[in-house]
């Protein structure tokens, strides 16, 4: 069984990755025009080369937003079971939020939330 499943797995992996590329290759119609090089749907055409320096603040904001956004998602499953678990759940979420809050405070203290 083991051998077979390993081979199956390998085949599946190859199919999954190679297959995707292959199908795309098969389906696409090989036309090239300038429109395809443009930014898609939203935004405006680039005015200069994208390989220039820009404000690191963009990154910081994006990262901090992402971190807290992701962490807060954990509140949803908590909300579902909080009634059943009672006090324990409350304590745990307070600890969790406390940790998050400390991180937030730190970011604030370091001035990461100030647009320079």
């Amino acid at each position, binding site marked *: 069984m083991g051998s077979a499943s390993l081979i199956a*797995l390998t085949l599946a992996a190859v199919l999954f990755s190679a297959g995707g590329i292959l199908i795309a290759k098969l389906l696409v119609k090989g036309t090239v025009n300038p429109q395809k090089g443009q930014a898609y749907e939203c935004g405006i055409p680039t005015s200069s080369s994208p390989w220039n320096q820009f404000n690191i603040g963009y990154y910081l904001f994006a990262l901090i937003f992402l971190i807290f956004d992701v962490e807060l998602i954990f509140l949803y499953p908590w909300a579902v079971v909080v009634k059943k678990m009672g006090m324990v759940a409350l304590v745990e979420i307070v600890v969790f939020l406390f940790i998050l809050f400390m991180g937030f405070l730190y970011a604030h203290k370091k001035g990461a939330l100030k647009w320079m």
Partner: protein
Amino acid sequence: MNDLLIIMKQELLLTLIIFVLLTLKIAKDMDNGAFLNLVNLLLAINFVVGFLGGMEGMLFNEMYHTNSLIILEKNILNLGTLIISLQSWSWLKDHKHVAEFYILLLCTLLGMFFMISAGNLLMFYLGLELSTIPLAAIANFDLAKRKSSEAAMKLIISSAFSSGLLLFGISLVYGSTGTLGFAGIAASYSADPMQLFAFVLLLAGFGFKISAVPFHLWTADVYEGAPVAVTSYLSVISKGAILFVLVPVLYTVFKPIAESWYNMLYLLSVVTIIVGNLFAIRQENFKRFLAFSSIAQVGFILVGITGSSSAGSSAVVYFVLIYIFSNLAAFGVVSFVSATTGREGISDYKGFYKTNPVLSWVLAIGLFSLAGVPPTAGFFGKFFLLLAGAGKGNYILLTIAALNMIISLYYYLRIVKAIFMDSNDHPIEKLSVPVFPKLALYLCMAGIVFTGFVRYVYDYIQSLSIGF
């Protein structure tokens, strides 16, 4: 609830320390000197408290477990961290981000604790990640150096890759056994190719962390670029922690495929010892040299693990303890010299004895211990490793190991010769060592003498060890 507090005592205390440091950082600006005093005091307390009133037990549906050996292992890591912290005093006292350094460092230590105590692959993985990612950040702490950034980048990329391998392995294990708990895996594991492949992936992940050949190539670049404190942390603490996990995982979880992993480990240890030695011979940078020599040391540890008995387990823990002392003695001197003079080349150490006799002796004793020259503790450590390895009667492996010990003797003694016998027009000037680094060096020296000669240490470790 009370049990939880006692069982997780070490983790909770560490978390508390992290938060104290974080709060301090947020609340007010302390000057570096006072902050370092406080941190070292806290770490010392942390180390001492580790010995008080521990308790064995399991928590969270066997996600987390602990026993006397694990408590001891955590204490060993605490000690190592304390020594490194003391040693990096002269580097950190003028650094801009001391608090961050310690917070990140202690987070990795916390990760290691959870990793060691893991009773479940998922828990293990979480601990591993917690112990790796902050390391990449502090590898970049020589902010002005490009090499430091390069080191951090290489570390994060290659460890991401190894994490990928681990996760792939874990998912295959889960797929084939239906469980992630260690006990469950041990019960249903067998040597069919699928599970063997999963094991190879896991072993590669482990091998990456302990830098066993051929998973070691990141080591040299990272060690060289990272600040010395981080390098010593990587090569001693982080490696030690992984070894502490590797041994029980191999001995208990993957016991059903012992024969297979024995062969793999055999191969890995031979290649690791030889390649580590070959690399170490030609290094001219002291840190890089120590990095490669530590690869060879890992090879010897793997020899001990192949013994797969309680002798193997205790030999590994014992050796890691000694290795912490010896390597940190060497790193301590190198770290101090590098922080005060910026010189890291081996040839810079020519004539070192003339100007700094005490430091020279510390360095020499550390190197002797690493080389395994009696009567230093390193000799006893290697001796027990090889003795454990001999348990399986594999004398080819032992012969290779012994021959390589001789080769390693060559390159360690080459440095000792440079220190004591070679003359130098511009030797490193006379340095006066501040209190904290000096204390760290004394600790290491005491450790090298004490652990070697006092039977009690080994006996105690052996009484706690597992094996089959």
